[in-house]
């Protein structure tokens, strides 16, 4: 683990409040989707146009997107804790996990936004300013988690054509309340709080599960040394991240930006020199 960066301070906030985030403990998620509903209700997020059965267990939401800011994943599998010696198949188990924007310490969506619409709040979260975004769509392929998207729908409907994602209920945070999803979660699978404290809570919960013999429990997004500088929204998972549709080792694309600009500069000089040579060489 490396030293944790305070993203609000790094963005220029003076004396910001403690960084806020989520710890989603998927080991106690019951898949009720109260978080999805509460999020939609509070934030006025419209129907995402996919009112259909997806054939993926109880998940008919599909994925995070412009109109889905919490997404409960359902995985049906044989338990990996099966001792194996008996030769019998292991117990069946559910994996349920409520996914959300990670509010990265190094957020690619924010880095690449050309209008300044995406910004770092005093709480260290990443939020779209609806009245500034012009829908260029650059944040969409930039996000290493596939979270943010451009809203599609009827012309003129709310925020159609612009980028949308979880705001960690910026309006509620300002008033001292917890985000709607955390408030609605009946099992405290979604915990809201100061990121520093959530990291400790996550480590404690991991140790407890390991002591209880659940060796497959692991944390995701809690390490400030990872490719996004640690997430504001971290998770306790019971299988590899990709099983839940999460990238196993996400890296903020702008980490390689200095190299990219250097190479582009070199290429530009090559073109300039080549063009000059085209006029110097030859007879006509």
């Amino acid at each position, binding site marked *: 683990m490396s030293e944790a960066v305070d993203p609000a301070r790094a963005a220029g906030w003076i004396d910001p409040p403690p960084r806020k985030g989520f710890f989603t403990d998927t080991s106690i998620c019951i898949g009720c989707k109260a978080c999805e509903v509460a999020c939609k209700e509070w934030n006025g997020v419209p129907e995402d146009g996919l009112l259909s059965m997806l054939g*993926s267990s109880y*998940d008919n939401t599909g*994925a995070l*997107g412009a109109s889905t800011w919490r997404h409960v*994943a359902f*995985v049906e599998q044989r338990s990996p804790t099966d001792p194996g010696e008996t030769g019998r198949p292991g117990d069946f188990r559910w994996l349920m996990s409520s996914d959300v924007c990670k509010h990265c310490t190094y957020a*690619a969506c924010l*880095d*690449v936004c*050309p*209008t*300044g*619409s995406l910004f770092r709040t005093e709480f260290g979260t990443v939020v779209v300013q609806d009245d*500034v*975004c*012009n*829908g*260029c*769509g*650059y944040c*969409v*392929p*930039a*996000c*290493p*988690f*596939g979270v*943010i*998207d*451009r809203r599609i729908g009827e012309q003129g409907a709310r925020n159609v*054509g*612009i980028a949308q994602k979880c705001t960690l209920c910026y309006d509620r945070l300002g008033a001292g309340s917890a985000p709607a999803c955390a408030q609605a979660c009946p099992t405290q699978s979604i915990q809201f709080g100061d990121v520093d404290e959530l990291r400790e809570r996550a480590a404690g919960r991991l140790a407890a599960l390991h002591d209880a013999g659940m060796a497959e429990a692991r944390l995701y997004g809690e390490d400030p040394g990872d490719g996004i500088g640690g997430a504001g929204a971290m998770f306790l998972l019971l*299988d590899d991240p*990709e*099983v839940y*549709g999460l990238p*196993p*080792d*996400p890296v903020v694309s702008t980490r*390689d*930006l200095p190299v*990219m*600009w250097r*190479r*582009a*500069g070199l*290429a*530009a000089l*090559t*073109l*300039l020199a*080549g*063009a000059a*040579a*085209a*006029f110097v*060489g*030859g*007879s*006509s």
Partner: protein
Amino acid sequence: MVPDAAFASYYGRPVIKASPWEKDIPAYLFLGGLAAGSSLLGAGADLTGRAGLRRSGRLGAAVAVGVGSAALVHDLGRPARFLNMLRVAKPTSPMSVGTWILTAYAPAAGLAAGAELRNLLPHRLGRVAGVLGALERPAGILAALLAPALASYTAVLLADTATPSWHEAHRHMPFVFVGSAAAAAGGLGVLATPADQAGPARRMAIGGVALELAAGHRMERAMGLAAEPLGAGVAGRLLRTSKVLLTAGSLGSALVARRSRIAAVACGVSLLAGSLCTRLAIFEAGQASALDPKYTVVPQRQRLESLLLADEHACSATVQGEPKEPSGS
């Protein structure tokens, strides 16, 4: 060659999102490159007294950058807000950097092209024609100096994303793109300029094709698994077509374009089409790589596993090196 790609995923669904961009964006990649190369040809022709090549270069650049900019605005979710791009200047956003390059370049290219048309102005606008005449060379040279940045930044624009087949190409794509720009602009020059003045355009096309093909080859070698989408499906067909068109256009420019008008036109069209196919291929490959979780999960999983191996190696080395302190974990 490619290691075993068995991997876990969530119902085979994408981990990341493909860009929401339509064909406007690869069209702009092509037109921006064409404009950049054409400005270079126009300025060079201006300084070396080739009036025909100067005219085709300047006019081609202005039309290309005009149509390209319109495509960019059209692709926005809220086109009426396109000026919001000018609220900030952010070096971490290649799109912001590109907006400012374009904002500086387009008026200069427009002015240089306007000067070419000043004889069409009615007589009473003689003063305007005079101003255009005085500014044409500085404007043309300014456009040419900004042009290489216009041609190369678009590679950074694509590469600075989580899209595997764009990001993994980040070291070589700028060279592919400037080569493609030179091929396209050279093609337009060969097509639209009398053969006796088109020498620089022919040489630019030949050099551009050589650079694009060489850099493209290195790019594919360096991309690992993410190179796969460049050889498959629509992207694969486009890339193969592009290589054929560019090679034909380049050979034709070297051997026959000087002698026959028809051959020159055919070469020019072939080079322009080849450059367009390259841009479309790279665009489509990126989109395909985002939609298949394999290209996101497998390289990341391999990265983690090699790290783990290295860690274990380091651990066992430490334990062997310091036998006095057996470590618990």
